[in-house]
């Protein structure tokens, strides 16, 4: 029974992580795009005058899409048309089950591995499930009975077949090095050091494999520069052209959920997953007290800095809008002051003298935080690249996939195999 509860709470954590990240990513995408293009981005939607720098906009979007009319084409294939958006979201969610977000958590004398399903064939599971994502796109494209959506579906298929190969072959190099298909083993293996100073991250031992995998993940998630399935300049909106209301929202959310999967995979395979470089688990547990103290002090200092910034806004923007929005800087200042004071109050619990049990939990928390931080960074990389690069033409896409990435991936695999066999 406890195992079931553990698993359910882990699923809950992953679900919350994905959905929370989706909201944050939509915000990051809009705000990041705006700043990159010298615009201000969304800053209007507000709840009682609190705008959170545009974070309220996704909430407004959800309400808008929930209440919109669901317009459907007359000659659609009814079952597939309804199944496609669900599948898109399910596939994105299912991939998370094998991604470890920490190594283990000691609570009440039990050791809980921080992964929903520790499959022995975790890597194969990911490759299998990830390619199912294409089915959602193809089904959506075909079921809507529209030429443009159909073209989007075809493009997605061709793209997926081309890049799946390189992705799998690139990952095989990693499997050769860490000797396991289990993701927890791969993540745990990356905690070592090479020559005593270089973290044994996938990117260090497989730099070429990382670049190939990164490119393939961009293609798998249908993100720019590989977003040809929805290429709006050529085929209107591509595969989701005929979807509206919440069904469109599901595709929209699935795109971001896929981005989070992609980011989590990059982090797990090539950037040490939950591992903090130079701080292996025993080190974290031994120094948990001082680390927690340092973290509390650091967060408190940063919060006070933010509070100061808001104080400047309070003084500068007095009565700027003449409505509830004028309260926002004061609320922000109060919030950050509260966070800072909360951290200082946490120091009152004397974290530097914590026992071994608390130290173990703190170490797990540190690792999970590290994992989330890496995921956020790589999700940001997706956005950053999208607003930097133009879209590939389809022949260029095929050329890159078949003539460049695949030979490189095979060469990488052969060299890795030779090196690991003879060295």
């Amino acid at each position, binding site marked *: 029974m406890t195992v079931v509860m553990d698993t359910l709470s882990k699923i809950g954590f992953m679900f919350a992580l994905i959905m929370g990240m989706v909201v944050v990513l939509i915000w990051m995408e809009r705000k*990041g795009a*705006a*700043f*990159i*293009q*010298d*615009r*201000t981005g969304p*800053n209007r939607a507000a709840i009682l005058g609190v705008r959170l720098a545009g974070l309220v906009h996704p909430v407004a979007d959800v309400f808008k899409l929930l209440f919109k009319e669901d317009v459907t084409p007359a000659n659609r294939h009814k079952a597939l048309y309804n199944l496609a958006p669900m599948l898109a979201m399910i596939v994105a969610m299912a991939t998370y089950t094998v991604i470890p977000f920490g190594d283990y958590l000691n609570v009440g004398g039990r050791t809980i591995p921080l992964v929903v399903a520790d499959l022995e064939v975790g890597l194969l599971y990911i490759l299998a499930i990830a390619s199912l994502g294409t089915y959602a796109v193809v089904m959506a494209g075909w079921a809507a009975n529209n030429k443009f959506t159909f073209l989007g579906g075809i493009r997605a298929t061709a793209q997926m077949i081309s890049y799946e190969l390189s992705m799998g072959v690139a990952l095989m190099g990693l499997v050769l090095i860490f000797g396991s298909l289990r993701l927890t083993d791969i993540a745990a293996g990356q905690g070592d050091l090479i020559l005593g100073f270089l973290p044994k991250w996938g990117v260090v031992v497989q730099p070429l494999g990382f*670049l190939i995998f990164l490119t393939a993940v961009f293609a798998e998630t249908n993100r720019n520069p590989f977003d040809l399935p929805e290429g709006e300049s050529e085929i209107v909106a591509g595969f989701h052209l005929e979807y509206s209301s919440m069904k469109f929202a599901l595709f929209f959310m699935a795109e971001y959920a896929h981005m989070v999967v992609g980011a989590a995979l990059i982090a797990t395979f090539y950037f040490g997953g939950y591992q903090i470089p130079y701080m292996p688990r025993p080190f974290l547990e031994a120094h948990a007290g001082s680390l927690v103290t340092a973290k509390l002090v650091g967060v408190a200092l940063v919060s006070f800095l933010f509070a100061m910034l808001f104080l400047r806004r309070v003084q500068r923007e007095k009565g*700027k*809008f003449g409505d509830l929005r004028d309260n926002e800087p004061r609320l922000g200042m109060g919030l950050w002051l509260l966070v800072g004071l909360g951290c200082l109050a946490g120091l009152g619990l004397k974290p530097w003298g914590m026992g071994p049990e608390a130290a173990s939990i703190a170490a797990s928390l540190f690792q999970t935080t590290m994992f989330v931080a890496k995921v956020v960074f790589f999700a940001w990389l997706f956005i*950053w*690249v999208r*607003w*930097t*690069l133009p879209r590939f033409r389809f022949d260029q896409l095929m050329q890159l996939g078949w003539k460049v990435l695949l030979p490189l991936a095979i060469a990488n695999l052969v060299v890795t195999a030779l090196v690991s066999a003879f060295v």
Partner: protein
Amino acid sequence: MSFEGLPKGSGNKKLSWRDSIYFWEILRGLGVTMRHLLKNIFHTDDMPTMQYPEEKRVYSDRFRGRHRLTQREDGSPRCVACQMCSTVCPADCISIDGAEHPDPTIEKFPETFTIDLLRCVYCGLCEEACPCDAIRMDTGIYEIAADDRKKFIVDKDFLLNNKTDGTY
């Protein structure tokens, strides 16, 4: 392939080896976008965006906004219903019905003077044609919005009183 007639440098150039692997150029591009991002995060106030309803752009005095009818000292319109403006109007948006003025020194006055703001192209020819300086476009009002097409057809009273609160 030849590119005759096109300026030099257009068309598919053969990329150098360094450019053909994309990697370094992608990094350079990422650097450019990151520079813009950081600049705009830390100097948000320098952004060229105007927060429109709160901040408004200041136009020059010669800006042609919504029309107004100027008044005599007694508050009656200076217009003598000569039809010059409605004749010259390229959009044909002014319609005037003249009537005899009780004052014998003034020949006529406009009984009705309506402008269809949806047809108006804001060219300013009516101003130039007017012999009495009776119609002007110097209000500076450019936010012309209403929820009904009928509300854009404005009459003499409206133009004389020159409401500036934006309501119709």
